[in-house]
Every structure is written in C-alpha cells, then in structure tokens.
C-alpha cells in the first residue's frame, strides 16, 4: 500500500546550512496532516523541498508513486501538488482577479477554471468584492486569502499551506480557518504547517511535531493519550 505523498529521509538546507536532518512524513489518500513545532526548525524548508524550490541533498519525495527528486517546480504543480507559501508573497502590481486568472496556468487548472473561480469566490467573498484591486493595496488578511485562493486556482490534488493564519487578527483568523475547513470539505487533502495546535487538532487526522530538523513525534488525533501529550507539550503538564 503506497501513500499519496511519501517523504523519505529528507536531508536539505540552504547553502552550507543543513536544516532538515532526515525527515520522513506521509500523507494517505483522503486524510489531512498537520506539522507543528517551534519556528526555525525546518517546517517551511520541508515544504520547499516537497514543492521542488530546493533540492534535497538526500532522501526522496514520492507523489502518486512518482519520485520528485529531479522534477522541476512547475511540473510538480502540474501533477497537482500545490504549495501556498508563507507570508504575503504575491504579485504586488497585479489585480486580485488577474492573479487568480494567471494562477489557472497549467492545463489541468485551465480546464477547471470556471469551477475553481466559483469555489474561490464562495470561500472568500471578500476577494470577489475586490477583483479589480491591486494585491499591494490589500490588507494582510486579504492577501493571505488571495494566496490560498491562488493555490486553489491551480486545481490541487494535494494542498500544502504554510502558516495560513500567521499574524492575523482573531476575527480574520476565524474567517481563514473556516475557509480552510471548507477546502477540506471539498475533498482536497491538506498538509498544513500551523502554530495554532487547537486549530490543527480540529482539522487534521494526524500531526507531526518537528524540532531541530527532525520529526520528534507523530500523533494520531483519535488517540486520547496523544491528544493529552500535545496539550502537555504546548501548555505545560497539568497534574
């Protein structure tokens, strides 16, 4: 039995710096997983290695049993593995509608464009109101929504989200969290990096704790003990 996404013993980093020291995670069909852990311990690097932005020094990433080691990032998107990056990294001088239109770039995404537009504007009504607005004039929360929406326009088979609620006000955060739950409900498996463990627990099936570039714990949410363990890690032991 093979996984939808299978990451095996990835060693990767930038320049001379090694950040990931042999990370293995997997995503089964029809499940969603979450990654959490302290900042600067390799979660974002792991997503970069999966989406081909950096090439791992060792180890392999398999998507639908295809080895992605020598596959270019744009081809990985074509295969349906889509990564929505951290922060508000968008095309600042383009309009909201134009960015979404451009994001339906691959052949597959073009075929589903009308349906994806509908989906995106239903999930994020704010974006529908701001079609003509330039990305650089959006608020932080709206940019975050646009970034997720752009990833959806790519017609993902698996969607990777890197800290989608980072720096958002509680109200906006709830809006984004609801939209992400909405995406999951449409049947797209998610791989989410997130600091808010409460949100992760409500959304995903399994969790990985990443520290010092390694998976230090894998937790099944249905397991009560594991659930307790996560709470202890994050909020301290309650005796």
């Amino acid at each position, binding site marked *: 039995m093979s996984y939808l996404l299978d990451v095996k013993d990835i060693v990767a980093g930038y320049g001379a710096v090694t950040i990931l020291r042999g990370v293995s995670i997997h995503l089964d069909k029809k499940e969603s997983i979450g990654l959490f852990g302290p900042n600067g311990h390799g979660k974002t690097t792991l997503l970069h290695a999966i*989406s*081909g*932005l950096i090439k791992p020094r060792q180890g392999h990433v398999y998507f639908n049993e295809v080895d992605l080691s020598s596959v*270019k*990032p*744009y081809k990985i*998107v*074509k295969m349906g593995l*889509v*990564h*929505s*990056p951290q922060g508000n*990294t*968008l*095309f*600042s*001088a*383009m309009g909201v509608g*134009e960015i979404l*239109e*451009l*994001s339906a*770039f*691959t052949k597959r*995404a073009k075929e589903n464009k009308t349906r994806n537009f509908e989906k995106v504007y239903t999930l994020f009504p704010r974006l529908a109101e701001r079609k003509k607005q330039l990305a650089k004039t959006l608020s932080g929360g709206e940019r975050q929504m646009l970034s997720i929406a*752009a*990833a959806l*326009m*790519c017609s993902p088979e698996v969607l990777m989200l890197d800290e989608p609620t980072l720096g958002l006000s509680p109200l906006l955060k709830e809006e984004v969290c609801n939209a992400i739950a909405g995406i999951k409900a449409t049947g797209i498996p998610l791989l989410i990096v997130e600091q808010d463990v409460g949100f992760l627990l409500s959304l995903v099936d399994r969790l990985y704790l990443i520290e010092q570039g390694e998976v230090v714990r894998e937790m099944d949410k249905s397991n009560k003990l594991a659930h307790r363990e996560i709470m202890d890690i994050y909020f301290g032991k309650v005796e």
Partner: protein
Amino acid sequence: MEIVVITIVSGLVLGALYALMASGLSLIWTALGVFNYSHGPLMAFGAVVTWTVIEKLGFSLLPAAVIGIVAAALIGAIVERFLVRSFYGNRDLLLLSCMTTLTSMIIIEKGIQIIWGSRLKLLPRIIGGEINVFGAVISAHEGLIIIISPLILLFLWRFMASTQTGRSMRAVGQNQEMAHLIGINVPKTYLLVFAISTGLAGLSGVLLGGIRFVLPTMGAEPLLKAMTVIIFGGLGSLGATTGAAFILGMLEAILVQFVGMYWTPSILFLLLIVVLIFRPTGLFGSK
C-alpha cells in the same frame, strides 16, 4: 512655422524609434532586473540579416524583415541561455550580467564586422516616396515609423496585460518563487522575455536601416538613448517608457534644431541628471 513642423515631425520619428528600443530593454529589466547591452548590436544584426536575405536570396523586404527579426530574437535567446541564466539567484546578478551582456555586445558587433565587412549598406524602405505633413516634407518611410511604432507598442501592451504568457512574463519579475508555485516554467519565461525583447531590437534595426546606414555600430547610440529613456521615464512600466521616449525624442529634435548636433547629447544627459535629482525614480516612476 515650417521649422516648427519639421522639428515636431523629426521628434516623433526619433521618439517612435526610441520607444521601440527602450520598450524591449525595459521588458528585460522588469522581468529580470538585468540591462542587456547586446540590445544595440542586435539592432544591427537584425538589419544585416534582412539585408543579406534581400540581396543574396532575392526576398522582398517584408519576409526578409521577419527573418531578420527572428534571427535577432534567436541570438537574444542564446545570450539569455548561456550568458545570463547561470547567474539567476546570485545577489550580484546585475553586475555579473552587465559584464556578460557587454561581452556579448562586443562579440556580436565584431562578428558582424568580420562577416559582413564595413561596406555601407542601406535597406530598402517599406514604402518609397515622400509625404508632406503641414509643409514639412519627410520620407513616407519615416511617416510609417511614426505610425508602426505606437501600434506595435499597443499590441505589446495588450499582450502583456491580457494573455497568460504576457501575465507570466510580468509575474516572474514581481515574485519569482510564487511564479514557480503556480506552475510557471520560470527559465522558459525568461528566455521568452529575452527573445521578444531582442526581436524588438531587430525590428528597430530594420526600420532604422531605411534611414541610416546599416553598420555594426548603428545600435550603439540608440542603445544609449534607450537606456536614458527608461531611467528618465522611471524603470519598469511600458507606458512610462513610451512617454519618456517621445519626450526625449522631441527634446532631441528641438535641441538639434536650435542648439546643434554637437552639444545635444551632453545637454540631454544634463537634463536627465536634473530630473533624477528632483525625481530619483524618474519622471513617471512611482516609488
């Protein structure tokens, strides 16, 4: 009265040519943050190839011009692939690519000289004859340049604004990582930017070849002007570049008419410096 009309018309011709050259340069600048020095000699290359196809193969101007433009675009693509691509991601990209495209400028210029010799060549004009514009007599060819150039720029602008390929060419300049992540083949897009840009250089060469002699160095002065134009206009936008090209062309025509050929370039550069002191981002630059 006549002298005013003559000056305006000659300013329009210059502006139209500078706009074509500068829009190509500006395309590369916005997408990659690179100044391509081979833009100048590729003007000459487009012109000499067109000349050869007409003289040796007996083609008429239009198909020959297409071949000349494609040939310039091809060399442009080669420059990107072998002299610029290896430096993407390097933080000294601007400096490194300046050195390599300067090298390509010299190679192309000398190459043309060796292959085609220094015999003076003139390309046929698209249409012969002269036209009378409110008392100023110019060649019909020059009249056509004034019309063709804005049309091509309009076409280019529509292409950049409303096709997926055009959008992707702007996207790679604004955010390379994001471009990768929505499925754009970034290196291929850069190659395309270079090819379209240098194709425009080839076209400028073909148009200029009907008014001035086709020489290996025919692009050197226009290249310098085109660089002035994009800095003057404010780096980045096609509209700003076009506006600045016509302003500069007009200024040059006025200066040549009333100050003389000799001092015109110096005065133009002094003006550029004055503009940059008061508006460091150029005439139409935003921030």
